[in-house]
């Protein structure tokens, strides 16, 4: 170990705490603002200490919504976000793991072309094909539906690649052994391969849940009904009205509620999160 002299070590601690302060400050402000009186905030008189409106603001945010034009309870938006995030995460894992299984454990005509067709979708993020995709979803009558929110985001080349890579490392002996036991391809998949993939699936789930919860552009386009809004879209609509009418404590409470689930997942499942992030980006 290269020894660090005392003075340098203090500098390192100081720099890290400054970094943490930079990272945490905007969030601190949002939590504080969500407990204060709107009139004070609108005057630019906001204090940097918690106010006394915590319960009242969060109650109104979750169960009532803003008093302005879009009167949609944020609780409902969170439910929509949750359904979408879960559908994207579970859907991606489910369809990717079975297609990776087919590509690794079977030889069939068009195996490699199919692999490439899936692989190339890495290069077609939803942002570059928004309007044509919107048109297709509209033609399929899936606007304002959970299917429309989730399906176009569900195909994932990264997840397929990840499972493919993992399956390649699974020893062949396992397959031989279960074949001797008389297991067919589906039994082998269910009884042997799935249990082995648990950690990979969990790590992937953490990342995909966060990405799904944080989707913005796509839900913005395809939800027109207020009751189908996700929380990310809802918060934007709260600040559309003229500045004077923006109910900042409610906006900030919504921001806090929008951050809570994914931040909770990152902090509590940090190991899986880091693993998932590193694996999917490789």
């Amino acid at each position, binding site marked *: 170990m290269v020894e660090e002299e005392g003075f340098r070590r203090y500098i390192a601690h100081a720099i890290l705490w400054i970094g943490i302060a930079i990272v945490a400050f905007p969030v601190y402000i949002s939590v504080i603002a969500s407990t204060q009186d709107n009139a004070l905030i609108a005057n630019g008189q906001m204090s940097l200490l918690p106010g006394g409106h915590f319960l009242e603001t969060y109650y109104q945010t979750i169960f009532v919504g803003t008093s302005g034009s879009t009167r949609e309870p944020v609780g409902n938006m969170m439910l929509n976000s949750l359904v979408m995030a879960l559908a994207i995460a579970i859907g991606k894992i489910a369809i990717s793991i079975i297609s990776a299984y087919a590509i690794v454990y079977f030889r069939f005509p068009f195996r490699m072309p199919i692999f490439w067709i899936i692989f190339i979708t890495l290069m077609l993020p939803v942002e570059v094909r928004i309007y044509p995709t919107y048109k*297709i979803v509209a033609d399929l009558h899936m606007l304002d539906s959970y299917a429309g929110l989730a399906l176009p985001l569900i195909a994932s080349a990264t997840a397929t690649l990840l499972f493919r890579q993992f399956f390649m490392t699974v020893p062949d002996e396992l397959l031989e052994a279960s074949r001797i036991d008389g297991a067919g391809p589906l039994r082998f998949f269910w009884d042997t391969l799935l249990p082995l993939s648990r950690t990979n699936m969990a790590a992937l789930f953490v990342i995909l849940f966060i990405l799904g919860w944080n989707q913005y552009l796509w839900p913005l386009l395809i939800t027109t009904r207020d009751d189908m809004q996700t929380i990310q879209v809802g918060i934007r609509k709260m600040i559309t009205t003229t500045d004077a009418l923006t109910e900042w404590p409610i906006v900030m409470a919504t921001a806090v509620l929008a951050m809570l689930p994914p931040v909770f997942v990152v*902090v509590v499942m940090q190991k899986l999160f880091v693993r998932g992030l590193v694996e999917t980006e490789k």
Partner: protein
Amino acid sequence: MQKQAIFQSKLLPYALVAPQLAIVLIFFYWPALQAVIQSFLLQDAFGLSTTFVWFENYIELFKDPAYFAAIVRTFLFSLAIAGSSLSLALLLAVMADKPLRGVMLYRTLLIWPYAVAPPVVGVLWIFMLHPSLGVLSRYLRAMGIDWNPLLDGDQAAALIILAAAWKQISYNFLFFLAGLQAIPKSVFEAAAIDGARPMRRFWTVTFPLLSPTIFFLLVVNIVYAFFDTFGIIDTMTRGGPGTSTVTLVYKVYSDGLLGGNLGSSAAQSVILMVLVIVLTGIQFRFVERKVTY
């Protein structure tokens, strides 16, 4: 590389790939193809007839000063976001890589902003730096700066860059830390024995050994600045004031939203696709297998 032990089945593998293949074909290839076809067509004002116009939509785009400005702006944003976020994250990662007490706590406290969605990032920062009620704006005005990002285009651009770079710190930090931890400690010891001071050790030993990670992160950050800043821009400035924060992706969105020129919007999408293909290509060509974690 292929597996030796495999199953024999004629239909099962097709059934297994069918769901993914169906989604990919319906929601990826079909729309992408539509965009390509649409980009060669010109629709009349009432949407009643379309004519095949070859590359006219593309030529019009590149003759349009607003599009050219958006290209330049997007690249400037990318460089500014990647540059500021990467350097701060590298500094923090180098500090956190030292044998300090509480490193795990530092890591936890630094990585969670990864989970904050871009629109929420936008809301947080516009609130802090709002011209009339922002907590930080008071100090800027006290310093004699006429702060109003809702009217001043350069200030709006600075605000977007600041917010976007802030969000990306944790991601970059995490990968820098992983990269640093992969460097064998004996390398530093050798340099220390040779008498290299810490700063010199960083520039002559750490930085070169970290270059694959830096390159990888540079590409990822550029892609991030191109696409994921949409939510930040849309909640903070809506591309304004004027068009001073309109990036390429934002332009596809807003041009299409106004229901205006479908052919032009499609051509813009196709150009973006080509850009993503180039960036992904670079990532795979130069990054894969060279970055180790």
